[in-house]
């Protein structure tokens, strides 16, 4: 397919461009290729499979990591190719046609991008990516207004580049407030209000989270920023082209955008910089004064053209893509939940971008799951942090327990994902989770504990999973659990509390909050209560007390 594509593009290019320049291009290219690389055997791909990093797989894995990056849309590549091959002028060259046509293409891309976000083309500044845009926004704004403004508000779940820029400012003596988020990953507007100070110079909150896909209440945050006249920066790299973005509605002053998250090329991004009221930044990169002096350096015309074209396509196809991705997400989630229990969605269920599904599989460690899922390209969190062993800081900010944070997998669905891919991913995931659970001592202990409760205490506890599910909750006809809809969470927690009290365990601090669990009729709450109860049971199962209690029981029974 790729060769077809390239051939068709080349055909286009060749008919448009002059024969002379093209031949010249190719003759040099061929010469370079002969000189540089002798016909090298493919280093890791051969007909029998792929061996890389010690892992052998039968073929290329299916790609479900669209938050890390996306493939370039063939239409985008079509738009880009002429600017590599024949229209290679420097857009800043004012003296010849090559420069003029490149400049025209860049300006065209600028308006394609501004169209997608409801801005004016003059408010778009090209950068190398969202990381650079975030850096310019945070450091640039604060450095510019440093005499009066000494305080920045951001959230704990921001992308690493925002957090790191803030750390950098902290070292320079600025003060930063890292707002906590709720268990659904959404920032609390009251807390945001409370955090605002007279010297607050910037509020930076991302639109769509890269790890868990939750969408922040942008309009409401924008309102607050307007009220206090504070510049509002948002990292919209994961939001652009996926959810409707409107700089007027959101009232943002600065916005970071990225090309390779929306089926455009890597290495290009943009910064939206509001003109009315004007927001000013100090440039990070000095030089030839391109992009109104805010970001010097020759613009990469082909990449920018690709970015612009990707934005245009995204604008046209956003609704269609959204419906499709939504259906695929449901297919993935339902497929997995049909087969295995103990699957938890991290982050808000309602306010989320459908293409990002972050799941935790209780009692299975994420990295080992990923290792078994080599035929599915997924990640356990953001690509930037997937090398470290630490559980995701985003999940920890959500209050996800460390043990559950270790079990998360992010499935990223995109424009080119297919139903067959989703089905295969479901199949492999289920197979692997079942295998690892059989191997998991935690899973074993949990069942042991439940059966202990059932048999020894005569309590009506069904060894359902991951919580206390009564036999009534079991749908015998369909062989299925009514997952927790019928479970009275407060009854469950009361039962646990009683049980702990009975064995004098309730006085210990780690069990205290079990009794504080309350059911407020909210489904989300049921989920969190369930997890809480489940967690307590686990802690108990792992603790010395459980062992001692168990021994005591046995000693008693044998005594009788």
């Amino acid at each position, binding site marked *: 397919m*790729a*060769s077809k594509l*390239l*051939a068709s593009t*080349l*055909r286009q290019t*060749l008919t448009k461009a002059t024969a002379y320049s*093209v031949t010249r291009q*190719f003759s040099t*290219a*061929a010469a*370079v*290729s002969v000189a*540089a*690389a002798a016909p*090298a055997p*493919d*280093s890791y791909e051969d007909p029998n499979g792929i061996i*890389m*990093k*010690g*892992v*052998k797989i039968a073929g290329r894995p299916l790609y479900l990591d669209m938050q890390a990056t996306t493939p370039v849309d063939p239409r985008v590549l079509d738009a880009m190719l002429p600017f590599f091959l024949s229209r290679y002028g420097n857009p800043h060259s004012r003296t010849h046609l090559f420069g003029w046509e490149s400049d025209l293409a860049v300006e065209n891309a600028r308006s394609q991008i501004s169209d997608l976000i409801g801005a004016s083309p003059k408010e778009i500044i090209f950068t190398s990516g969202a990381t650079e845009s975030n850096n310019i926004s945070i450091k640039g704004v604060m450095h510019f207004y440093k005499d009066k403004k000494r305080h920045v508000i951001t959230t704990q779940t921001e992308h690493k580049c925002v957090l790191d820029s803030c750390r950098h400012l902290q070292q320079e003596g600025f003060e930063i407030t890292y707002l906590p988020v709720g268990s659904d990953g959404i920032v609390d507007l009251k807390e945001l209000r409370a955090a605002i100070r007279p010297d607050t110079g910037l509020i930076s909150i991302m639109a769509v989270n890269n790890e868990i896909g939750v969408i922040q209440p942008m309009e409401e945050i924008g309102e607050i920023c307007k009220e206090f006249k504070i510049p509002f920066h948002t990292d919209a790299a994961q939001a652009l082209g996926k959810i409707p973005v409107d700089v007027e509605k959101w009232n943002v002053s600065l916005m970071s955008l990225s090309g390779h998250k929306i089926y455009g090329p890597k290495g290009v991004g943009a910064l939206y910089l509001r003109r009315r009221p004007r927001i000013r930044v100090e440039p990070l990169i000095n030089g030839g004064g391109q992009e109104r002096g805010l970001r010097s350096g020759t613009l990469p015309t082909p990449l920018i053209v690709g970015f612009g074209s990707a934005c245009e396509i995204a604008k046209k196809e956003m609704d269609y893509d959204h419906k499709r991705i939504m259906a695929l997400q449901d297919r993935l989630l339902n497929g997995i939940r049909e087969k295995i229990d103990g699957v938890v969605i991290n982050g808000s269920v309602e306010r989320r971008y459908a293409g990002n599904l972050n799941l935790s599989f209780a*009692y*299975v*460690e994420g*990295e*080992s799951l990923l*290792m*078994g899922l080599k035929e599915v390209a997924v990640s356990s969190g953001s690509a930037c942090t997937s090398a470290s*062993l630490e*559980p995701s800081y985003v999940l920890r900010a959500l209050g996800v*327990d*460390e*043990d559950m944070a*270790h079990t998360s997998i992010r499935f990223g669905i995109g424009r080119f994902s297919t139903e067959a891919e989703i089905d295969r991913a479901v199949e492999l995931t289920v197979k692997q989770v079942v295998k690892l659970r*059989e*191997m*998991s*001592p*935690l*899973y*074993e202990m949990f069942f*042991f504990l439940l*059966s*202990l409760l059932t*048999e*020894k205490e005569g309590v009506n506890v069904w060894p359902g999973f991951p919580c206390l599910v009564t036999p009534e909750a079991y749908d015998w006809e369909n062989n299925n659990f009514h997952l927790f809809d019928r479970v009275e969470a407060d009854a469950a927690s009361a039962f646990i509390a009683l049980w702990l009290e009975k064995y004098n365990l309730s006085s210990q601090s780690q069990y205290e909050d079990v009794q504080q669990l309350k059911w407020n009729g909210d489904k989300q709450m049921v989920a969190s209560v369930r997890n809480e109860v489940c967690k307590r049971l*686990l802690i108990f199962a*792992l603790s010395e007390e459980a062992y001692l209690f168990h*021994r005591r029981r*046995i*000693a008693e*029974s*044998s005594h009788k």
Partner: protein
Amino acid sequence: MLRLASKRVLGLATRDGQSVSRPAQAVLPRFYHENVIDHYNNPRNVGSFDKNDPTIGTGLVGAPACGDVMKLQIKVDEKSGQIVDARFKTFGCGSAIASSSVATEWVKGKQMQEVLTIKNTEIAKHLSLPPVKLHCSMLAEDAIKAAVKDYEAKRSKGTIPEAAPVEKAADA
């Protein structure tokens, strides 16, 4: 001519991709050794023994919050003190699973005192674990020691053998 040209471009593209990726590959450590993959794909001796059987020693180490929990059990021949069988269950990364799998293989057929000399470095060497994964092999060493200790504690007490059938029912 068109086909030729596009082929050349394609060829150039892939070759370029390689020449860029190859040095990077050489710099990066290999992620998993084939022994790790083997033990992960075909773990040896997965399962559980009855915890209260007097001939069984159980070692449970690690914490879920750290991402690794290892349960290793040994079955000991009471007369000779030889470990006749071993089982494990592990919650953790591939290296942790492989470490515990290797540990169960190594302890089988050995004397109790002998297995205490198994060092984490030997396990790590066998699996070529990278430095960030060394804690997995340490956990395996700890699990072996804990299992032996548990068995010895049981023997010195000798209090629970009659409870075994009851426990079996609960374990089911």
